[in-house]
Every structure is written in C-alpha cells, then in structure tokens.
C-alpha cells in the first residue's frame, strides 16, 4: 500500500520549496505570473498531500511512507521522515489551507499606486515565495521522525514567518502608515524572539537528549523509532529528574508556539499586525506544529515526565481557555479578538492532549484540523471586511449585514464554527475533547465547558457590533459585498466545515490508530465506564 520507493513526503515538501525559489525569481513586472505560479504549486502540493492520504493505510504500521538517510552522522542525526495518522491529518490541513491563503492574499502584496520610495517595499514575489517556504518547512516538521530534523525546521520556519509578519501589514493602518510599520516590526520581533527563546531552551534539551542517548546507547541518536525501540528493550532508561528537565525544555518551546497562557502575548500582536492570510498562516498552520509536537515528542519521548506534568499543564490549559475567551470578549480589534479566541481554542487542544484519553487526544487532533478550517473561514472573511473599510476596530463597523449580506452570512458561519455549533466540524472535536477530559478529570471537564458559553458571547458580540444595527457610517454604505474570488475562497471552507461536521469518519479512521499508539507510549488506557455491562449489552 504505502509506496516507499518514491520519496513522497520529501516530494511534498520539496515541491513548495522549489516553488518558492521559482516564485521569488519571477521578474518584478510579471507580478501576476508569480501569483499564479504560487497558486499552482500550492495546488500541486495539495495533490501530493491527497496522494499521501490515499497511500496511508490506517491499519498498517505506525509510521508509514518512511524515508531514512544519514545526514549529520557526527550528531547522530538522520534525515528520517514518516507519518502516522496525525501527521497525515496535519499535512493535509497545511496543504489544504495554503491555496486558500494564497488566493485570499492575492492583492495583499501588490505595490501601492504611488511609488514613493518608502512604499516601494511590497515585493509580491517575496510574499508568495515566503508563504510557500513556510509551507515546505511546516510539512517537513510534520513528517520528521528525527527530533533534530524536526527542531531544525521548527526553528527555521520562524524566519520566513518573521518577514511575512514584519514586511506585509494591512494597507491602511488604523494608527497611520508610519505607526503601523513600527507596530508591525514590533510584532515581528516579538514573535521571533519569543519563539527563539523557546527554541533555544529546547536546543539545550535536544542536546541533553543526545547526551542521554549517547551515554546509554553508545551512539547518540534522535530517531524516534530507535529511541522507542531502545526504551521498549529497556536499554534506554532516563533518570527521573533528567527526563523532567528535558520534558520542560521541549514543552516550553511548544507551549510558546501553541501558545499557552501565560506565554501567549506574542500572538495577538502578530495576528493583529499581519494581514489576514498571514494571520491564518500563523494560527491555523504554524502554531499547530507546537501542539502536534506536544503530542508526538513530549508524550512520545518523555512519557513519565508527561504524566508528572499533567496536572500543571491541564491547569494552564484551563486558564488559557477561560482567560483567552474573556479577553476575546474585551477586545476592540477584530483580529486581536480572533487571536484571543485562538488562545482559548489552543487551550482546548492542549487539554485534550494531556487528558490522555482516546477521545481527548483524538479530539485534540481533530481540533487542530477543524480549528484551522474555522479560523481560516472567520479570519479571511474578517480580512476581506477590513480590506474594504481599512480599519480593524470593531467600533468602525455596524450594519454591514444590510449592505453586504453574503459577507455577513459567511462571517456568521465562520463565527458559529468558532463557537463550535453542532453540525459544523469544530463541534465534534470540542465535544470529544470535553468528553475525554471529563472522563478522567471531571472537574476540569466542567470548567472547560464554561468555555463554550463564553465562546458564544464573544462571537455573537463581534457579529452584533460589526454586522447588525443601523447603517450609520458613510463608509459602510459604500461597502461592496464579497467578490467572486473572495467567495471562491470562503465557500469551499464552509462546505468543508459542514461536510466534516456531518461525516468526520474518514478523518477519525485515520487518526484513531495513531492516537492509540500515542496512548500506548504513555501507557494509558481509557477509564472504564461505571457500568461496563451496559457497554457490553449495547
């Protein structure tokens, strides 16, 4: 089934990388050529990702489509790729979202009409090339089964993201062009430093991991399989304190990326200042690497330490859920609101992961995918709205629904997905996470349930303040409705949200076995129901 002769995973990552180079190389005048090239490449990547999904056999080995080459023998680093169900899901999400991001950002990097020197810096080619570069790096890190390989791209992807955030903001900034530029670069630097600090601490932990494996296995290794086998064979046993330190080193990096309270403050700036497509790229794609890594590396490498840290992590996750939601309610800026909402959602994901139940982790995985889709829908529509009015402030809107019903409608659907309304995909993941959490930590489950009420508040407040009410602002009266390109971006996302909400089975079938593996890594099984015989009778 899984055809290993052809390096499918590598191809999936290399295609966008080459596409990035090619796009960057397109001459300045042929701007549209660059756009189309980028779009085509991203679609090609999507096709490859689809091929991966087809080639993947849910019933087969844990890691499939594996590739393994020696890379830096001195550090025991191998170029090892392989995907489990979770990896497939995440690669699929990435490859799926990038075309939408590109299409949504079609005009975000166009040079402004007046070519005064300070405005000249909007190289369209660069914009799309960077997006493709990020895609390539993200895909590699989802496919990497070698810790070091993962780390390299986990860190490297910061650079293109950094330029995307700092280089391409909204056209008309509420606080003026110059101020906008300042805020942008502040946000970009904050993003990079925050993640870099995490990454460097993780680097120390990575080195520690090498030392541990080196002095126990003779030759240091970063390969998940080797480490797992060594563990199973009892050749590798980490001293409790060492394991906990290493776990913390890894977890910090992922918690910053995810982001988890109180390490979240970079996200609102980054999402607020960057253009909507880039904001989607951040929260829907790049940040998922963090949660994904918790699932694969924190739990996979340090099971005992993970169990040890679970109470604290769950507490943090709960705080994130409630705190993020409350702050979302308090925001005056559409994008920052979505950002805080995402923080709340990442809380749910982390909660699900550390609930250590098949529902929790399966739910968390689905959550990563569905949150990607729902946030994309909401944020992209918000971006279209902002690009029309040239302001991110909620108070600058009102009554849009009257002049642009389609825009408002899609916005509402995105919002409803964000508050995980049944029938839309996110509901399933959120409910699974809650059930999974509740079945092991009832109190935590109940606290988290408060989050769904707050979600309703911030989403509906946002919709009410922007879309409903009388049209009392002249700018709003002239607001055009969604254009065909924009509709083409949003409609498929909404269709997906509905379809997956009604029929998520294809996804769950792929994810479930992987989750079982992860649970067996941490040696956990689902808690039995109080009356098992009912289960049997059913």
């Amino acid at each position, binding site marked *: 089934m899984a055809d290993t002769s052809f390096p499918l995973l590598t191809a999936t990552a290399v295609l966008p990388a080459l596409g990035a180079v090619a796009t960057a190389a397109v001459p300045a005048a042929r701007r549209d050529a660059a756009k189309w090239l980028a779009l085509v490449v991203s679609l090609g990547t999507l096709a490859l990702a689809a091929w991966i999904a087809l080639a993947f056999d849910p019933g087969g080995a844990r890691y499939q489509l594996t590739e393994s080459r020696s890379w830096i023998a001195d550090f025991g680093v191998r170029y090892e790729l392989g995907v489990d169900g979770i990896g497939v899901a995440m690669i699929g999400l990435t490859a799926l979202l990038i075309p939408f991001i590109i299409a949504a950002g079609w005009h975000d990097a166009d040079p402004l009409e007046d070519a005064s020197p300070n405005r000249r810096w909007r190289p369209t080619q660069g914009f799309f090339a960077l997006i493709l570069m990020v895609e390539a790096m993200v895909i590699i890190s989802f496919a990497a089964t070698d810790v070091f390989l993962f780390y390299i791209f986990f860190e490297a992807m910061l650079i293109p993201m950094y330029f995307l955030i700092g280089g391409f903001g909204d056209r008309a900034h509420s606080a003026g062009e110059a101020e906008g530029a300042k805020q942008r670069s502040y946000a970009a630097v904050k993003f990079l430093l925050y993640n870099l600090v995490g990454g460097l601490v993780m680097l120390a932990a990575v080195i520690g991991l090498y030392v541990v494996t080196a002095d126990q296995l003779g030759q240091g290794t970063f390969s998940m399989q080797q480490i797992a086998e060594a563990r199973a064979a009892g050749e590798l046993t980490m001293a409790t304190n060492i394991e906990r330190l290493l776990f913390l080193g890894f977890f910090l990096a992922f918690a910053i990326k995810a982001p988890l309270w109180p390490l979240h403050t970079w996200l609102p700036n980054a999402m607020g200042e960057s253009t909507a497509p880039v904001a989607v790229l951040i929260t829907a794609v790049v940040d998922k690497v963090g949660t994904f890594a918790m699932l694969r590396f924190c739990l996979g490498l340090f099971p005992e330490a993970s169990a040890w840290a679970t109470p604290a992590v769950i507490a943090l996750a709960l705080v994130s859920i409630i*705190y993020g939601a409350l702050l979302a309610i308090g925001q005056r800026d559409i994008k920052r609101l979505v950002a805080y909402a995402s923080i709340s959602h990442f809380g749910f994901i982390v909660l699900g992961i550390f609930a250590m139940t098949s529902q929790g982790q399966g739910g968390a995985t689905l959550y990563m995918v569905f949150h990607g889709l729902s946030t994309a829908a909401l944020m992209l529509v918000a971006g279209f709205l902002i690009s029309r009015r040239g302001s991110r402030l909620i108070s600058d809107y009102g009554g849009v629904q009257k002049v642009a019903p389609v825009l408002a409608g899609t916005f509402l659907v995105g919002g409803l997905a964000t508050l995980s309304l*049944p029938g839309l995909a996110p509901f399933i993941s959120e409910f*699974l996470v809650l059930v999974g959490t*509740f079945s092991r930590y009832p109190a935590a489950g109940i606290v988290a349930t408060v989050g769904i009420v707050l979600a309703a508040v911030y989403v509906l407040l946002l919709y*009410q303040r922007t879309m*409903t009410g009388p049209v009392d602002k002249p700018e709003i009266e002239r607001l055009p409705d969604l254009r065909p390109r924009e509709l083409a971006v949003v409609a498929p996302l909404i269709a997906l949200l509905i379809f997956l909400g009604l029929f998520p089975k294809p996804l769950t079938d792929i994810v479930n076995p992987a989750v079982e593996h992860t649970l067996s890594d941490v040696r956990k099984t689902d808690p039995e129901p109080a009356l098992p015989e009912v289960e049997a009778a059913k």
Partner: protein
Amino acid sequence: MIGLLVAAPLLGAAVLLCGGRHLNRTGHWLGTALAGVSFVLAAVLFVDMLGRPGDDRALHQHLYSWVPVGGFQADIAFQLDQLSMTFVLLITGVGTLIHLYSVGYMEHDNRRRRFFGYLNLFLAAMLLLVLADNFLLLYVGWEGVGLASYLLIGFWQHKPSAATAAKKAFVVNRVGDAGLAIAIFLMFTTFGTFAFGPVLANAEEATQATLTGIGLMLLLAACGKSAQVPLQSWLGDAMEGPTPVSALIHAATMVTAGVYLITRSGAIFNAAPDAQTAVVVVGAVTLLFGAIIGCAKDDIKKALAGSTMSQIGYMVLAAGLGPIGYAFAIMHLVTHGFFKAGLFLGAGSVMHGMNDEVDMRKYGGLRKYMPVTFVTFGLGYLAIIGFPGLSGFFSKDAIIEAAFAKGGTQGWILGAVTLLGAAITAYYMTRVMLLTFFGEKRWQPDERGNEPHPHESPKTMVIPMVVLAFGSVFAGGLFKFNDAFVNWLRPVTSFEHGHPPIGVAAITTLTVVVLLIGVAAAWLQYGRRPVPVVAPRGSLVTRAARRDLLQDDFNHVVLVRGGEHLTRSLVYVDNKLVDGAVNGTAAAFGGLSGRMRRVQNGFARSYAVSMFGGAALLVAATLLMRAV
C-alpha cells in the same frame, strides 16, 4: 422515511439560503410546500403507526456511524415512537400553518426568502431534536433550534434591540446547553454510551448521586430552552422577532423542548427523586412568575410571552410529578401549542392591522374592525383560561389533579399553586382580551400623523388562525375521550393514575371557581371603567412585574456589568502585567546594557586596568582552585 422528515425542510433551508435573488418570488411557497411535505409524511407515518399494537409502534432508523472514537460511538440514528410522533405532528402541523401565515405576514419584507429559509431550518432542527435516538444527536437539534431562534429573533437585524435580544437568547440558551453537555458526559462516563435505549433501560443501576447529577443538568438544559426560572429572562426580549416566529418557536414548539427532554429522560428522573423535586419546584415557581409578569405587561406579545412561560411552568411541574404527570404534561403541551399559537397569530393579525402597534393601551374596541381575529382569538382565550369544554380546560385540570395527587403537604402546596396560577391566568388573559377587543378605540395618529386603519388580515393569515382555533376548541376533548391520549403515550412514558386527596369533581369545581374569580377581577379593573392610554404608575409589585420582577436588572447589574468590568480589568492585566513582564525583561536588558557599556570609556589605560585586574583574578582563581 424518518430521515426524510428532517431532510425535506433541511433541503428547503439550504435552497432558500444559498439560492440567489431569483428565488425571491417563489421562495416562500417552496418553503411552505416542503413544510407541508414533512407534515404529510408525518401523517402517513402516524397512520402506519396506529396500524400497529401499542408496544411495537416505535420505529428505528440507523443512518450511519457519525463519530466513532474509542468507546465513544455516536451515530446518526432516529427513533420514532409515540412521544416523538406527537411532537412531529405538532411541529409539522403548526409549522405548516405558520409558514402559510407568514406568507401574508411577511409580504412586505424584502428578505422574506431568507425568513422562510430560517423557518425551514428551524423545522429541520426541531424534528431532529425529537427524532434523535441518542442524546448527542438530540443535542445537535437542541442547539440547532437555538440557532434558528437566534436568527429569527434577530431577523430585523437593523434594530439594535432585536440583535441584542437574539444574542441574549442564544447565550442564555448556551448556559442550558452546557448543562445538557455535562449530562451527556456523565452518561458516557457512567453507561459508556448516551443512546436512549441502553441509558434509560439501565438508569436504575447507576448511583443516586450520578442520577441526581444527570437529572439536575438535564433540568438546567430544560430551563434554558423552555425559559424556566432562573433562565427565563430571554423569552420576553425574544418577542422582538416577527410574530409568526413568536407563535411557532416561542409558544408552540421550541420552548416546549425542555418538557420533551424531561419526559424523554423520565426513567432517569423516576430514579432520582431529588432531581424530580427540583423540577417540580422550578415548574411551580415559573408558573407563578410568568403569570405575574403576564398581568403587568402592556405589550400584547410580552403579555402572551409571560403566559407562555407560566403555561410551560405547568408542563414542567407535571413532568416533575413522574408517571402520574408525564402524559398530562405532553397533553397540555399539545393543546397549548394550538391555542397559544392561535393567540399569537391573533396578536400578529392585530398588529398587522394596527401598524405594528404592540401597546394594548392603544388598542380597544377592535372586535368591530377584525371580527375573524376576534373570534379566533376569543376561542384561544377561552381555551387557555380553561373554560369548561375547551381543550385548555381538560389538560390544565388534569395537571391540577395530578398536582394534588402528588400527595402529602407537597401535594397540597402544588395544588394550591396550580389553582392560584389558573386564577391569575384567567385574570391576565381577560385583561388582554378586554384591552384589545372591548372598550372604545384608544389609538391616535402617531407622530408621523398617519392614523392606523384596523382591517382584517389576508386569507393566508386568516386560515391558519381558524384552523388553530378549531384545535384549541376540540383537541382537549378529543384527547380526554376515554383517555385516548394517555393510552397512546403509556408505552413510552408509563402512566399511573394519581389519587388526589379530594374528589376529582371538587377539584374541577374549584378550578372553575378560581377561574371565574380571575375573570371577574379583570373585568372590574378593565371592563367597567375606561382604560388610561398611559399606564398608571402602579404599585411597587406592578412596577416590579413590568420589569420582569427585576430579574433582568439583576442579570444586567451582576452578569453584564460585572462581566464588562472583569474583561476590562483582564485586558488591563494582560497588557500591563503578562505582556508587561515580557517587555519589562527586554527593557531591563537594555538598561543593563546601557550601564555596562559605560565601562568602555575609551581610555586605553582603563582598559589596561581591567586587563591587569583580570590577570590578578585569573591568578588568584587558579591558586584558589588549588587551595580548595
């Protein structure tokens, strides 16, 4: 087959909402037709069901496995038993009628197509709610109707009040939904499943605590959806929606979903007496609460909303009584569906004729101008106050008997409450009747000088009113006729005869007496002397009642204001403390750097000093190392 019931209106919703402008002319008929289709289907199924003996009337249909994750197996599967059947008929029947009514009522609204789309969406969700065979699917319908209600309450989004009301309704409902969610968690952790069959069959085996927990959580859900105290506050505002919506969703069907939930989970409540008591209390409190509000409102729809609240209080109370009450709860639910829908449609018709004026003090003497509305409304009125022979009489009387039959002091208290409720109902409904249709005209030209010209509504609106009037007159008798209704439901809700401490006849007479008292009181106040156009200041209680007994103000002060303060202070904390810590660290490094670079003062000799000092340190350190 069962799936089609849901599919038909769902299809309608999809077409109407996604379809473009060219559907504007025909859309509403499409919507009505599809509602009719599902009604016909329901009728067919009903007949087919009657063809089978009582105990194997339930139908099951398993469509596909929805969310299978580990032990968590959620299916898309339907169950059609007598209880569901009753609701399906009510929903599709009344639904179709109200679709028809809306054709006329919304004629002049350029967004009529979307309105019908929402209505169809509501039908689909509501049918899903009552047809689901597990609690998770029920939850889907549960929030689905919430969404539909949100969309329809806020249909006139350009009115801030409407938008606010819609949001309020959804959020308050969300609180209830959270309860339902937690109940499902508990079922899953207890039974390992949340399908009706296994859960209800094995309810007794679970521990008392668990059952009570589940029961209370279900009750919370019911309170949210059925506007029971303490989650009732949204219903009054919900009247911002178009009147057909109020009739269908906030009178006949959706708001009664709570009663369905409690009845459906009867097995759990039967095994959890504490939870049952809670249900009864909520019902009793709400039926008085709603009634009192109903007395004070001058807005005709708000008055009817209060009455809805109170009537559902009756149902909840009955459902809380256990097997002796379930059937009557449902029975009252159905009859109430008829007459309350009729009343709302009547109110709508009145508003239609009065330029959407809702203040009853500006009506008066309308019976001359809109006779059909007057008659149908009047029949509904008689039905709701429980005038002997009409449907309300039978259903309410049954509940009052059951209340007494609860036995012990509880029985007496509940009986008294239900009687008192009946009296108040009679009072405020009479008040509505008198203010609207009797006395002399009290309306003046509005500020824009155009005086309302009351007139009878178009056919599309009248027909449904007539049909519902028939229902409100005869339904009760039909059901009561040798306990047809009770026997019909018995296989599902398990019925047992309650034995009131005093004779049934006595109770009936009591009921009639209190009812007359109520009517008389109202007549004394509003029938004899002219009604002031501007509401008198009124007593403290009256003013409180006008403000929903200050419960809303409480919400406003504690939840809304409090929440605003909380979020605002949290935003401050996030910026100044959490983020401040980060920026502070950066600033600290900057300052440190600024101070440290001063050492680099440009003088070669001071560099030499540092070298010399360094050398000395190096030597000292090395010697020290050896020393220790």
